[in-house]
């Protein structure tokens, strides 16, 4: 028999579920279906291709390039921004002269639009009279370098901007976690004669593990989601040197209008994200203590 409570529960959920299914779950499924079809053009409808799109993807050098770029982007951004976030949180949590200003400085990039800050960084990277060249020229007498126009450095330049944008955001979560650690633990360790370094590695860091799990899952998702600044800084170039998977999906779908192939690329991105999320969960599962 259907109970009254059931109906209330279902009715309360209904509006949210309609939108959730319409814009998340159903699109995810149609992405998978469309990845097996050709792109419909004009009056010609989509044709079933089987795994042709997937074969094309595996043979597509640009796909492999943006995939490697994306992995390099993740490796370049995640550990550095998480490490910096812990350092920032430790500093700001301490009794520090001018703590208010320091905390504001760290956190400010979080509230600025990525697309807007990309404009500022674009100028920093400008060959010749950009800030970087001025500093390296003044200090070391280096000649002008085109950080964004050089395939060797373009992606790294994008990584620097991302780390700058993300670290302060992650800091907040560590700050919350640090404030939840009982002072008595630290005091007990100090009585035992433990120095700052030992206290950090033996007490603070293990207790921050749940936060690290949360932050790094977020960081992984972000490393596949943050592409706004690429539009301004490099537009994926030169020669796709700084293009990421989502940016390539955007290009394929909305510049070349190949939505069938773009669906296939989206499936690859979704599979990758799921694998990474599951992998991270197991990797950290053994290391998260005191939950």
């Amino acid at each position: 028999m259907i109970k009254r409570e059931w109906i209330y529960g279902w009715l309360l959920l209904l509006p949210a579920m309609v939108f959730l299914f319409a814009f998340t779950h159903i699109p995810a499924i149609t992405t998978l279906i469309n990845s097996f079809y050709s792109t419909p053009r004009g009056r010609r409808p989509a044709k079933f291709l089987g795994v042709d799109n997937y074969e094309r993807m595996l043979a597509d050098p640009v796909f492999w390039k943006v995939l490697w770029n994306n992995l390099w982007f993740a490796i370049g951004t995640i550990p550095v921004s998480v490490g910096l976030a812990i350092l920032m949180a430790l500093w700001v949590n301490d009794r520090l002269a001018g703590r208010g200003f320091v905390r504001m400085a760290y956190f400010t990039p979080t509230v600025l639009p990525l697309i807007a800050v990309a404009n500022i960084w674009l100028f920093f990277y400008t060959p010749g009279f950009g800030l970087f060249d001025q500093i390296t020229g003044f200090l070391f007498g280096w000649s002008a370098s085109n950080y964004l126009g050089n395939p060797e450095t373009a992606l790294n330049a994008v990584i620097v901007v991302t780390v700058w944008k993300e670290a302060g955001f992650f800091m907040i979560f560590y700050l919350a976690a640090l404030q939840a650690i009982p002072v008595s633990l630290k005091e007990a360790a100090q009585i035992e004669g433990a120095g700052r370094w030992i206290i950090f590695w033996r007490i603070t860091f293990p207790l921050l593990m749940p936060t690290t799990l949360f932050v790094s899952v977020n960081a992984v998702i972000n490393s596949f989601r943050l592409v706004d600044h690429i539009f301004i800084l490099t537009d994926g170039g030169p020669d796709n040197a700084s293009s990421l998977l989502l940016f390539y999906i955007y290009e394929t779908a909305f510049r070349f209008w190949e939505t069938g192939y773009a669906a296939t690329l989206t499936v690859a991105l979704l599979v990758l994200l799921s694998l990474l999320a599951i992998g991270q969960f197991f990797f950290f599962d053994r290391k998260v203590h005191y939950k």
Partner: protein
Amino acid sequence: MNSMGQTFDRFLNTLAAWALALIWILPLAYAVWTAIHPAAYEARFELFAPLTYDNFVKAWEAAPFARYFLNTFILVTMILACQFFLCTLAAYAFARFEFPGRNVLFALVLLQLLVMPDILIVENYKTMRLLDLVDTIPAIALPYVASGFGIFLLRQTFKTIPKELDEAARIEGSSFLGVLWRVYIPLAKPTYLAYGLVSVSHHWNNFLWPLIVTNSVETRPVTVGLSVFSAIDSGIEWSVINAATLITSGPLLIAFLLFQRQFVQSFMRAGIK
């Protein structure tokens, strides 16, 4: 460790913290510097360079920023209102009702934290075309209104509210929606504030989806407007672009500086689950 060593240690830490803070604030400081000085000083740093607000005037006149602001304002208000409504009802169901399929549905909600609308741009664009909504503000908002994060956050908060309060209100004759309105929502106010700030700053700054789904001045939010403005290769001066950059991030930045404590605490609250 002796006290000399400790003082030295503290000094080094303070120094490093400040050095990093100065590096972190540098881009913003630089943008402010160029925006309030004539173009001739955009790479020359003199303490007494003449001040000007011309750059802001030029930027404001060069692109319909007033309209962009209005669009962004409508957009974030629309998203926030819908999110509050949908997420509150769903969170209430998950927190206090027993019904078949609850766990499966909750798992589906959490799935959205991984499979975000940001990634499903191709299919969502097709949906908008089907609904004939391309190039409208609701089209930017719709994929985000049922937020998995919001549902999760509110559910966690609702679960901490003692059942006795709920039952007391029911005995006094409140219906289940009355209880939600009189007990749960007032007690969850800090969570609403926290989630609201996170949501507004997220959607104010969002770029990729609005870029795809809008193509006219009447619908573009400020982020897309700014990118259109700065992408024109007509030799716009850096100082003007930086003024425009500050204009677009201005309201959020000012709000942040004024309510810094609430902002930081809100983000903290949203992060602790």
